[in-house]
């Protein structure tokens, strides 16, 4: 009992991560704990040598004085916040609780560093203000035109024009919400990338095909022959490419060829998209990838968009460990957007089994099931990537999907047997209903098993792969 009550409180004082102090009504600190120096960088001697008000942010001094006045009159202070100077010239937000000690003319005070909280709150407020601003604009058309159409007669041409505007603005609102949620998911780290070796020319080809044709702004792809495989989440990189291609088109109102190129620097590949469009003023370049930033565009009608596309692209590329950037010689000079991806290293390219499967979830299942059998695997999201991998990775077996984004599984199988002269055991897993002839064709191409894709198929496939490897080894 007595030992607990006689404990030395000095220990608590020194241990506290909160800032503890005794201050006098003369305006000077009398005692400080080590947390002060850890938080502000000033030594205790420096802090006690000057009136404490010297360390308070000039804008907060009046309020601080008012709180000190309260204490002098015997009242407590709770939840008071002010900024204190740090040795490096920055300020930290402190949240205070303080009380007068009565007899000995001292104030006893505890402060907590709440700078991170304050900054997070401010960032959140700014974001909410920005989002609500961006949502209100398309809503203005939806609410305004529908009220007008309900309350008055218009000509058929006007009605059509107003309804089209409502539809467009409704779509813009939808895009905005979707893209905003995408971005939040990525920033919160909820969106998992499925990284694997990927064949860049295939990703570019798929993005260009999705972008579609436009005679005014044709897309020209010029990639070096010997590009290494890159580490990428195929769908996310296609999303970035699409965003950059669609921007290049949007900001080329007078047309012009859009050029997709790539260059290899040591262990990274830089992909760039060049246009001959409006160009970007130098002062806008650093802000381009910020949320909701739009280049002020007074010369031509404002281009539709959410202001989130580039922010999303940046997040995607940064999650890949790459960089994004933009260059332009100024207005009217076109622009060049680029991003980098890591080249796939030898270690990420070797394994026992090559999985050719565009369904990421199923590929992960296969990987897990094979792992249980002691087999490592490498995942290729399309046949083109698989073509490149098969020559390099020393795979001993293949699990193959038939329906793939570019070339089909059958194409890959034909090349595997002819070009690579390979006798590798292949297990086919497909959602397609195959008739007897098709199954027979696969069988005669050396497929050891044809499985229908269902929940247990990954396990079955792993079983067939193991059996095939065992019988080969025997």
């Amino acid at each position, binding site marked *: 009992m007595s030992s607990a009550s006689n404990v030395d409180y000095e220990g608590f004082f020194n241990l506290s991560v909160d800032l503890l102090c005794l201050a006098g009504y003369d305006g000077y600190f009398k005692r400080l704990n080590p947390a002060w120096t850890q938080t502000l960088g000033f030594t205790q001697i420096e802090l006690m040598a000057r009136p404490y008000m010297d360390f308070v942010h000039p804008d907060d001094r009046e309020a601080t004085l008012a709180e000190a006045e309260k204490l002098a009159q015997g009242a407590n202070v709770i939840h008071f916040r002010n900024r204190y100077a740090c040795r490096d010239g920055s300020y930290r937000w402190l949240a205070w609780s303080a009380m007068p000690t009565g007899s000995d003319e001292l104030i006893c005070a505890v402060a907590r560093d709440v700078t991170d909280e304050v900054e997070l709150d401010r960032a959140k407020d700014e974001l909410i*203000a920005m989002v*609500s*601003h*961006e949502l*209100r*604009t*398309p*809503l*203005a*058309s*939806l*609410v*305004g*035109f529908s*009220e*007008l159409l309900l*309350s*008055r007669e*218009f000509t058929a041409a*006007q009605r059509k*024009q*107003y309804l089209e*505007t409502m539809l*467009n*603005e409704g779509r813009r609102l939808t895009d905005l919400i979707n893209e905003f949620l995408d971005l939040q998911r990525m920033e919160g780290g909820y969106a998992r990338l499925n990284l694997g070796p990927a064949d860049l020319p295939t990703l570019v080809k798929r993005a260009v095909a999705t972008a579609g044709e436009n005679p005014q702004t044709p897309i020209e792809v010029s990639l070096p022959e010997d590009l290494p495989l890159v580490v990428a989440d195929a769908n996310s990189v296609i999303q970035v490419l699409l965003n950059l291609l669609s921007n290049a088109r949007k900001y080329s109102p007078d047309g012009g060829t859009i050029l997709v190129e790539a260059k290899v620097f040591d262990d990274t590949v830089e992909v760039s998209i060049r246009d001959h469009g409006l160009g970007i003023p130098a002062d806008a370049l650093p802000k381009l990838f910020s949320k909701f930033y739009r280049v*002020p*565009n*007074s010369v031509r*009608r*404002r281009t539709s968009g959410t202001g989130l596309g580039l922010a999303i692209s940046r997040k995607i590329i940064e999650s890949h460990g790459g960089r994004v950037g933009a260059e332009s010689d100024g207005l009217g000079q076109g622009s060049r957007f680029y991003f980098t991806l890591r080249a796939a290293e030898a270690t990420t390219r070797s394994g026992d089994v090559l999985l050719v499967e565009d369904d990421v979830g199923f590929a992960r299942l296969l990987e897990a099931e094979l792992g249980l059998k002691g087999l490592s695997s490498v995942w290729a999201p399309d046949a083109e990537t698989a073509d490149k991998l098969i020559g390099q990775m020393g795979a001993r077996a293949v699990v193959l999907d038939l329906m793939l984004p570019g070339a089909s599984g059958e194409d890959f199988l034909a090349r595997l047997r002819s070009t690579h002269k390979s006798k590798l055991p292949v297990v086919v897993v497909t959602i397609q209903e195959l008739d007897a002839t098709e199954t027979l064709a696969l069988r005669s191409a050396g497929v050891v098993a044809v499985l229908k894709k269902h929940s247990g198929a990954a396990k079955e496939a792993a079983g067939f792969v193991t059996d095939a490897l065992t019988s080969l080894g025997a």
Partner: protein
Amino acid sequence: MTHTVLIADDEPSVRMLVQATIEADGYNVLEASDGDEAWALIQEHRPSLVLLDVRMPGRTGLEILGSIKSHPDLVDTKVILLTASAQESDIDAGLIAGADFYLTKPFSPRDLRSKMDEALFL
């Protein structure tokens, strides 16, 4: 007398909405898609009333409002602010700077007409 009205907003859909709202009222309507264009048109045409988006490229709505109120020949111009931010600080700043009314997007076309009537005819 036919009143000249200027609508300045960088969103084409908002300008179209304002046009559709007041097309039957016989105003002479001017459009500007940014702040600098708006200020040039105001000086040239001396509209009786301007509808100003607060956030535009070039001069902001509040800057133009300031210029109007400090210009001896324009000081009587009626001003309605259109804002997509519901932040009270923005609205207060606008009213203190001498705007007659403000409307928050989305706004009701009926409200817009009644505010315009009030500004021009009362």
